[in-house]
């Protein structure tokens, strides 16, 4: 095919961030009117690639053509001017503005003639077979309607390429159907569409071709007719290097520490029931937004369940705050260190000892710096925390050491139920191994451990038992021994 006939062509796109090579030398070509699915695990580089197209990131190398003309998207606005528009996962609408104003935001003339605007937007909405009054405020729209408005936005800017990042994440089956019809419709008018989705069937059903990304590289680019779901899964997973050896001897499970029955929270967790035993590591697998983190937050008292019960050591408990949870011996290492873990302006020592201030009492019940120093030193040594000094800002520690620090803080409270949410996120290779080793050790000391990770190999490597979550429900509870990566993946994806 000649490049002129292509709507969008990308050659050798590479983008790396400090420490990570997010997208490596990716080629992509879209015909006019083509619906092109982009699939891959979390962190396989889909979003990064799209953000390069939509002008949020500049590629380190590689070139992009639109209709055969080379372009260099500077910023979202510029990208839109070039004909590339992106629909983001989170809503991108201004609640107080009308649908029409939202659609035209940033592209309306200085003097907006309301009638004309409404008319032109209404035309687009009609074309989308989407009956909503352009004059009503965006605040009153539901999830599906919001997606429609996002599409309308894209059409309003006369886009040649529309990138859709998980447009169906929040939609019901019937809504998904309608959305797909619309997408096919607009594709028919010659617009090329990049469709990112974790719902593999959806992708296969909708798209003409599919590109599979794995660790930032193109694993395959085939037409959907030649693919079935299993191939797709296999392509996505590939042959991962096992980073830790599977435990040869299964830790033998002790008494039941936690049992939950029918936990519900908003629409994010539906009827989650499971139990956790002493001495075992349970992996909580699933996609981002599948409710893993939410379940953890319920267990740790960060959020309060709307329904269901939590039993700790077979006594029902009501966890109103993390403080309560700690009181019952449940400690959590949260996903985002910066917001929910570290106290950035404070020193390493202060960060370490914040949980055990009562132990630092010296003369007249005042904190004794000496005792603080030795306590902090003790924790630091125990975790082989490498820092030039305990007095420096915790900011200047590496990701790995920050994570170790938080684990250390978690352990000094001597909890027997530990929740690790993404324990190795943004952590350097050396530290990963250490952290994994630590988790195992804790388990062998009879703690009950819940590990959440988007990186399946990690789950597979660590856990004795795996819970797979999808759409807020626990869809599978299998022994790690007889679980295969593919199996888990295929349950995690729709």
């Amino acid at each position, binding site marked *: 095919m000649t490049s002129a006939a292509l709507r969008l062509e990308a050659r050798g796109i590479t983008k790396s961030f400090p420490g990570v090579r997010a997208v490596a030398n990716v080629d992509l070509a879209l015909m006019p009117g083509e619906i092109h699915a982009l699939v891959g695990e979390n962190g396989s580089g889909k979003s990064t690639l799209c953000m390069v197209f939509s002008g949020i990131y500049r590629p380190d190398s590689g070139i992009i053509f639109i209709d055969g003309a080379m372009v260099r998207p500077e910023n979202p606005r510029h990208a839109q001017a070039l004909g590339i528009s992106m629909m983001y996962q989170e809503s991108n609408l201004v609640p107080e503005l009308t649908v029409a104003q939202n659609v035209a935001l940033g592209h309306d003339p200085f003097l907006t003639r309301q009638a004309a605007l409404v008319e032109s937007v209404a035309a687009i909405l009609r074309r989308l077979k989407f009956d909503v009054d352009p004059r009503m405020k965006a605040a009153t729209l539901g999830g599906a309607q919001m997606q429609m408005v996002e599409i309308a936005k894209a059409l309003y800017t006369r886009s040649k390429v529309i990138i859709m990042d998980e447009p169906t994440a929040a939609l019901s089956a019937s809504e998904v159907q309608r959305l797909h019809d619309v997408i096919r419709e607009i594709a028919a008018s010659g617009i090329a569409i990049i469709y990112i989705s974790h719902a593999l069937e959806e992708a296969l059903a909708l798209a003409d071709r599919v590109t599979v990304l794995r660790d930032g590289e193109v694993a395959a680019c085939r037409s959907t007719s030649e693919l079935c779901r299993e191939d797709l899964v296999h392509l996505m997973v590939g042959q991962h290097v096992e980073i830790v050896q599977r435990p040869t001897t299964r830790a033998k499970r002790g008494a039941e520490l936690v049992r939950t029955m029918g936990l519900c929270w908003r629409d994010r967790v539906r009827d989650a029931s499971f139990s956790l035993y002493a001495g075992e590591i349970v992996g909580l697998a699933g996609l981002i937004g599948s409710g893993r983190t939410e379940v953890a937050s319920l267990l740790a008292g960060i959020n309060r369940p709307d329904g269901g019960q939590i039993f700790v050591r077979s006594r029902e408990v009501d966890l109103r705050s993390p403080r309560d949870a700690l009181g019952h011996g449940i400690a959590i290492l949260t996903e985002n260190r910066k917001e929910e873990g570290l106290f950035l*302006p404070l020193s390493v020592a202060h960060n370490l000892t914040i949980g055990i201030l009562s132990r630092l009492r010296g003369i007249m*019940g005042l904190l004794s710096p000496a005792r603080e120093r030795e306590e902090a030193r003790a924790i630091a040594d125990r975790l082989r925390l490498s820092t030039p000094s305990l007095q420096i800002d915790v900011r200047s520690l590496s990701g790995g050491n920050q994570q170790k620090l938080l684990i250390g803080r978690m352990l000094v409270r001597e909890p027997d139920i530990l929740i690790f949410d993404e324990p190795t996120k943004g952590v350097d290779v050396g530290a990963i191994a250490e952290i994994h080793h630590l988790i195992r050790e804790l388990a062998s000391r009879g703690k009950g451990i819940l590990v959440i990770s988007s990186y399946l190999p990690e789950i597979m490597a660590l856990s004795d038992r795996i819970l797979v979550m999808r759409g807020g429900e626990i869809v599978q509870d299998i022994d790690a021994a007889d679980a295969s990566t593919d199996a888990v993946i295929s349950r995690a994806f729709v």
Partner: protein
Amino acid sequence: MEGLSTPAELARAARFQRARGARALFAWAGRNALTLIFLALCILLSAALPTFLTLGNWTIILQSSAIIGVMGFGLSFVMISGSFDLSFAATMLLAGAVSARIIMLDDQATVLALLAGPLAGAVVGVLNGTVVVVTGISPLLATIATAMLIRAFAVLYVMQTWMEIPRSAASFLWLGQGSLRGIPISIFLLAGVAAASFILLNRTGFGRMLYAVGASPRAARVAGLRDEAVRIGAFMICGACAGIAGVINVSSVGGLSAVFNISYLYDVITVVVVGGVSFFGGVGTVYGVALGLLIIGVLKNAMIILNTPYYAQSMVGGVFLLLAIGLDSWLRKRRAG
């Protein structure tokens, strides 16, 4: 530097080393900017004004900073907890009125009067804190409202016309008028409050939690700290300090009038912010606030000595505020961006 696992860390360590080397001086100067400014001021002024560097003058500088300083230390607690209080000036008026009222009823009830003021302040502080923390409305606007209420309450229910402290209440008046070995008592009070704040902030669990809550309320929650209680506690301390300031004020002049002097508000905020307490919580030291207090105090003193027109004084305050805050926010933005 043993046990550094990754190249990234080695690099970081190296940077740490370098900081000790060439850029050490700048780093040091950056850390001690306030101290340097203060020393520079002192040198400058003592060169310009022969009487500046005398014991007598410094007594005056400290004594006239006492009230502002006491409230400043109080306010810094609230600001470290990541909140704000605009009602302390009104609280000072109320507390002063309360203790004046008591001592006027019984001129020997010194202890009661001395305790009542700070106590009233603390109560007001708790109310403030509860309003802010429980409803979660903006502390700025909330405390503007409470300030109006407190002041009105004081004027309507506690105060009379010029409240004259009976001269017979000697021990009460001694607090603000007496002196030990030529050093006014109010200076000892200021020092006491400073010391207490230092201990509270650096040597107690409450202080640690305060910094933690201010630095990241969510992290504090997850770490299992009683964040709300801590924030209310900060307000309480602020109120109590305002109360102490009120008592000092009353006993220092032996009376209290309902004419409300708003300038205290600006002065205290200026001192605290110049002292390097961040608006965004988690940052601030007693040493810094003390320096801020001294810098502003010295400036005012010099301006009075030089007999500068009064209006210049408020402007200088404003400019200092601008510089201090501008720097704080700018650095913060650099870090965030």
